[in-house]
């Protein structure tokens, strides 16, 4: 008994059940021994009446298709089988054969179904779709790694009383009310009065200091003149981590919480700090005080350290990407403003663009610079010289902060990528109408552009041209073919395909044969659907059902993207900690069995999506 309990305690999903339930399972299991080669379940045969948990040994899953029997997977100690048949009540879809002498614990069907009913996490584990399973794997990490960030709701952080005033309240009166209530922010009730809705305004301690005292405003000034409205709010049931991201993204210190459309309270940065005193997430604040190069370098180091912290805390890679983007954007803006301060105001509107992974909000560790500059047509004389000097300064400063120059010279210092609006528009038109190899490479970088600083409206200038490419079937076909150039490294037998040569033996490249494949697919689908966003997950989400991408496939790809990204980042961090240069080549035998299984699932989802793309776009080309 104790032995069986101990074993269950060590293996998910049982390990997540209360001890009482585990004991209940242990006293209800049946134990069966299978000699090597014994058939445990038979494809198309009698439906399973137990959930099988391998205690010792391993089993092969075999599937017969068109008279050919294929090995689809091998399961070992601690893994389960039989649940697909159990859940559907249908004959097994695979034959399960003992690969070696194997001892199994058998959980009776009735108990299995009851556990699925009573424990959602248990049911999730056996969910049929890969999306559900990958999602579950992520949730598990969140829950165990940093409960305070991923399990606490924003509403649980509310400590300050909610203070509200009408918009015509004099600032002195408002300040007095804040002092009385010991609140660091107050909500300004805007029409319709009496309803604190999402349109309400907010005034904080800092606003009183910066906008009233520092500006020398009359203390009888109506509060509405110094408030921020509408306030940036968050649903009260958001996770603390999401709230934190929102504050960082918008650079605010207070977050009014809404519940059913009503503001129910305000949480402040201080409330977050109290929850996690060593949280390094409030970095953009440090930039304000940064002046020397050393300060800026320290800042970027801090960002890198934060990624590690977030990773340990179980954050999603997509969330880490957003946090890092916010931090790096803040740095970039700081650097550009310094350059402007040194060179004088710009001669005409312009915008500084970030490209590639930064453009997609997917940069996690510091990588090479990818940037460009666009300025208004009919710029005055000397504009070109001004922007050249500006680009030199900014790029140089970024290098000093630890962002190496782009080896392919995709930077604003390259005159080719520092051009007036009309030239840029021609670039894009050219790439789309003549989709050469070279052009396709450029689109992979430039379609993912994102303006970070400047007044020129890049989106309005360039995005419509990019989106018009969807009408060009030849271009789409070429883009599809480029997206399929790398195939998911998984074979028909659901085994990982590893490098077999030299020092690359047993290795898988999680970027080129992992995340990058999904990025390329997402770009294709987004274009097909006319979605202007650059972020891979947003692209997938928005193009589902509006392109050849189905909603299920989109969900699977998103889950796969998160998972491969997580494995990759974790791997890179491990290398960083060992003082190595982080790379993308992962040694598969260093992954845990669970990680291997998840990777297999994720790559399978990519392979399925790739096959669908091949079919869709080949057909459209012929037609």
């Amino acid at each position, binding site marked *: *008994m*104790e*032995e*069986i309990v101990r*074993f269950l305690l060590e293996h998910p999903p049982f390990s997540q059940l209360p001890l009482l339930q585990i004991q209940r399972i*242990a*006293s*209800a*299991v*049946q*134990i*069966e*021994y*299978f*000699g090597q080669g*014994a058939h445990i379940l038979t494809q198309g045969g009698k439906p399973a009446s137990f959930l099988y948990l391998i*205690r*010792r*040994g391993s089993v092969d899953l075999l599937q017969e298709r068109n008279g050919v029997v294929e090995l689809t997977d091998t399961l070992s100690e601690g893994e389960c089988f039989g649940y697909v048949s159990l859940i559907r009540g249908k004959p097994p879809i695979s034959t399960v054969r003992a690969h070696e*002498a194997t*001892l199994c614990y*058998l959980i009776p069907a009735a108990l299995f179904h009851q556990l699925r009913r009573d424990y959602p996490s248990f049911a999730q584990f056996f969910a049929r779709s890969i999306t559900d399973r990958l999602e579950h794997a992520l949730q598990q990490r969140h829950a165990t790694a940093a409960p305070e960030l991923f399990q606490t709701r924003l509403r649980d952080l509310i400590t300050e009383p909610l203070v509200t005033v009408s918009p015509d309240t004099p600032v002195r009166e408002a300040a007095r009310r804040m002092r009385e209530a010991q609140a660091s922010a107050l909500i300004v009730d805007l029409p319709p009065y009496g309803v604190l809705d999402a349109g309400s305004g907010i005034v904080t301690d800092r606003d009183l200091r910066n906008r009233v005292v520092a500006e020398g405003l009359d203390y009888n000034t109506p509060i509405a003149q110094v408030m921020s409205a509408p306030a940036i709010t968050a649903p009260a049931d958001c996770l603390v981590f999401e709230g934190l991201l929102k504050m960082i993204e918008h650079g605010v210190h207070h977050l009014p919480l809404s519940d059913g459309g009503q503001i129910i309270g305000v949480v402040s940065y201080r409330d977050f700090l109290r929850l996690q005193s060593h949280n390094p997430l409030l970095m953009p604040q440090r930039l304000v005080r940064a002046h020397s190069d050393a300060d800026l370098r320290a800042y970027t180091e801090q960002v890198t350290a934060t990624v590690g912290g977030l990773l340990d805390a179980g954050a999603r890679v997509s969330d880490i990407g957003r946090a890092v983007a916010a931090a790096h954007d803040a740095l970039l803006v700081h650097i550009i403003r310094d350059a402007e301060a040194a060179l004088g105001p710009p001669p005409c509107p312009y915008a500084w663009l970030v490209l590639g992974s930064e453009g997609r909000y997917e940069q996690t560790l510091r990588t090479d610079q990818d940037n460009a500059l666009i300025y208004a047509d009919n710029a005055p004389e000397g504009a070109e010289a001004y922007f050249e000097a500006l680009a030199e300064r900014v790029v140089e400063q970024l290098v000093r902060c630890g962002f190496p120059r782009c080896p392919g010279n995709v930077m604003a210092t390259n005159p080719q990528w520092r051009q007036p609006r009309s030239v840029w528009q021609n670039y894009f038109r050219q790439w789309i109408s003549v989709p050469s190899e070279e052009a396709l490479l450029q689109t992979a970088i430039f379609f993912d552009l994102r303006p970070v600083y400047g007044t020129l409206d890049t989106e309005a200038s360039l995005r419509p041209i990019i989106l018009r490419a969807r009408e060009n079937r030849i271009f789409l076909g070429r883009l599809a073919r480029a997206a399929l150039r790398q195939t998911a490294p998984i074979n028909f037998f659901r085994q990982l395909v590893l490098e077999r040569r030299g020092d690359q033996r047993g290795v898988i490249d999680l970027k080129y044969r992992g995340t990058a494949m999904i990025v390329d697919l997402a770009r294709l689908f987004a274009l097909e659907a006319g979605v202007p966003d650059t972020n891979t997950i947003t692209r997938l989400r928005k193009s589902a059902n509006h392109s050849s991408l189905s909603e299920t496939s989109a969900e699977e790809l998103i889950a796969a993207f998160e998972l491969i990204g997580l494995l990759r980042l974790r791997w890179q961090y491990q290398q960083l900690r060992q003082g190595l240069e982080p790379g993308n080549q992962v040694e598969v035998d260093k992954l845990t069995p669970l990680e291997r299984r998840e990777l297999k699932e994720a790559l399978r989802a990519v392979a399925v999506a790739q096959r669908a793309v091949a079919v869709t776009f080949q057909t459209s080309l012929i037609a």
Partner: protein
Amino acid sequence: MMGAAMFLFRRRPANLPEPVVQYLDAPRPDPALLWRDVPYSVMDVETTGLNPRRDALLAIGLVDIDEGRIRMDRRWYSLVRPPDDAPVNPEAIRIHGLLPQDVEHAPPLDDVIPVMLQRLTGRVLVVHVADVDIGFLRQAMRRLYGVEPRGPAIDTARLAWHFQRHQHLIEGSGSDQEPALQLRALAESVGLPVYPEHNAFNDALTTAQLFLAQVSMFEAHGTPRLRDLLRAGGCLR
């Protein structure tokens, strides 16, 4: 010694408790049955010593095998209060870990045996080293009811010896080393997990798993029948 032989032919004593009667009257399983179609009960006992005549039972563990599967939901374990003239000796405590106070309030043997026989009714008994386990059962049944335990029964130690002998014949290994027949060593040699030893229930479970592993060794020559198992490891007629 004559007495023991005579015993077999004696008429059944009158006024036996109902469970004992049913145990004795149950039909024996047909030896021609496929092994899976036979119900088994795997037993292990803890005692104050190794001599069934002198020493007393302290605990009995049973687990059933139905349709070739060990049934944790049909397990049974009982402590037994030893008679006053057979106290728990310190030597044995080291092995089974049972202290006098553990069994002080346990039911006496004549309460435990009928319950146990009820569970064994119609089943093939499986034990590891029959001399000890069946020896104690026999002694208890004789003393309480004047009857003998019924076969058939299977001894996993005897099965192990059977396989080892075959191995010797096949491989022509000249080693005349005494084969290791301890439960734990055998279980480990076929890659089975071992449960903490010297608890009557855990040992019964380990024996049950060993039994299933041994049966699977027959499978190479086709699914064995009860008869095949009895021929190789039978121990009680």
